[in-house]
């Protein structure tokens, strides 16, 4: 076969066509390519179809041929040889595609590495449970959580994070057990240069593990990172309250208690004044040590609270009473009215009807004031009464 580079464009094209390659326009830019292709085909034909590399080349040709056969309907050369070659090459192409599929499958086998890691984490989890049980002797919950067999990386990360949460959360409840953990946690939290990897390394260094790969750490870090951020936020108030008071572990209790004390302290004194015999616990106030309010100690009471805790109903009653007529005046009026009625009764009973009618007429005349009539009635009644007696 002639040297491809020595051929003319048309000859090159023809040669390629003989080998089953339908070449495009052989231009300056494409000539080199087609020459190379021709050489490869000549080599492959000369050596036979044994090498895999050559097979690949053939596959590429076959693919090309398949495409060309599919694309073009008008085939000038419909020779049987070509068809046979096309069939052979199509079969080889199928094999090639199957090989490609295998390659993809092999590529897919990269993933099982994560299962290996998870199996390693299995062992780590089992090893973790032992030292943790040593630390928290009475903490059955924690050990059970870690003994739970996690099947993938993520649950392990969660269990570790939750175990750490328990460490911090129950640390106040079990100060003896978790003191070993908390100082490290506090120091790491308090230090500005806080890093998750540092914490993980600390925790790992404490555990008697000989094999601890960086990838595992990174995986755990990546899994635990989110949980740590959340747990850190939770840990902060817990740590602060722990520093002040060792008894209470819920962060919400302490500010609420401070508020309680602020509102109730002035009332406390008045309560004692009014009810010296009552205990302090009736109102729920506990006399535990608290942070003293700046400036309040020693100063006299500048403003007075109401003496008695006034309920709204009593206030209303007071207002109503203010508007009503005072009771003294009411009694006076009542007495006057009773006297008047009594006099009239006596007058009516004792006197005959004549003078009573006269009295009534005089009353009805109404020229005099009532007091004057009353006086007249009294004066008339008095002699009447005196006359009778």
């Amino acid at each position, binding site marked *: 076969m002639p040297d491809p580079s020595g051929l003319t464009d048309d000859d090159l094209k023809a040669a390629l066509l003989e080998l089953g390659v*339908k070449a*495009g*326009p052989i*231009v300056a*830019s*494409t000539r*080199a*390519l087609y020459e*190379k*292709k021709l050489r490869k085909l000549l080599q492959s034909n000369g050596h036979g179809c044994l090498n895999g590399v050559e097979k690949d080349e053939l596959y*590429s040709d076959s*693919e*090309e041929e398949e*495409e*060309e056969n599919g694309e073009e309907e008008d085939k000038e050369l419909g020779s049987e040889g070509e068809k046979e070659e096309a069939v052979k090459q199509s079969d080889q192409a199928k094999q090639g595609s199957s090989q490609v599929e295998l390659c993809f499958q092999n590529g897919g086998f990269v993933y099982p590495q994560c299962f290996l890691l998870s199996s390693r984490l299995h062992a780590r989890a089992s090893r973790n449970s032992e030292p943790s049980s040593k630390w928290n002797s009475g903490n059955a919950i924690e050990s059970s959580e870690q003994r739970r067999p996690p099947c993938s990386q993520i649950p392990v990360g969660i269990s570790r994070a939750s175990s750490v949460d328990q460490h911090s959360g129950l640390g106040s409840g079990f100060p003896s057990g978790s003191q070993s953990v908390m100082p490290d946690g506090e120091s790491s939290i308090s230090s500005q240069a806080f890093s998750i990897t540092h914490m993980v390394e600390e925790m790992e260094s404490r555990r008697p593990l000989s094999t601890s790969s960086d990838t595992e750490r990174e995986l755990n870090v990546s899994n635990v990172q989110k949980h740590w951020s959340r747990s850190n936020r939770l840990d902060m108030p817990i740590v602060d309250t722990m520093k002040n008071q060792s008894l209470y572990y819920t962060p919400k209790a302490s500010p609420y208690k401070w508020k309680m004390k602020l509102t109730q302290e002035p009332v406390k004194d008045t309560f004692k004044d009014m009810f010296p015999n009552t205990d302090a616990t009736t109102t729920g106030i506990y006399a535990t040590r608290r942070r003293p309010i700046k400036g309040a100690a020693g100063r006299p009471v500048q403003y007075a609270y109401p003496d008695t805790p006034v309920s709204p109903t009593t206030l209303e009653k007071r207002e109503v009473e203010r508007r009503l007529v005072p009771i003294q005046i009411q009694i006076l009026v009542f007495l006057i009215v009773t006297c008047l009625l009594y006099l009239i009764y006596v007058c009516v009973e004792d006197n005959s009807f004549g003078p009573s009618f006269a009295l009534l007429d005089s009353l009805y005349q109404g020229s005099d004031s009532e007091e004057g009539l009353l006086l007249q009635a009294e004066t008339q009644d008095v002699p009447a009464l005196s006359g009778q007696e």
Partner: protein
Amino acid sequence: MSTTSQKHRDFVGEPMGDKAVTALSGIGEILGKKLEQQGFDKAYVVLGQFLLLKKDTEMFTDWLKDASGANSRQAGTCAQCLKEWCDAFL
């Protein structure tokens, strides 16, 4: 989710017009400069080469490797990008 890059999607999503050769997926600055030195200064010129090779991705890949020194991945990406563009707009 396909494995195409954002660059690929950007190129295939619209007519290439007068885009530079570096707009092709797989063609970065270095490869772009090499292509420009050979005269392929615009994406449509590379498209022309692709069409000359009868839209054969294998041949185009080989050509691109020879012309710009691209590796198999880059050349394959570029070929795929041009093929899809042709399917969409040609």
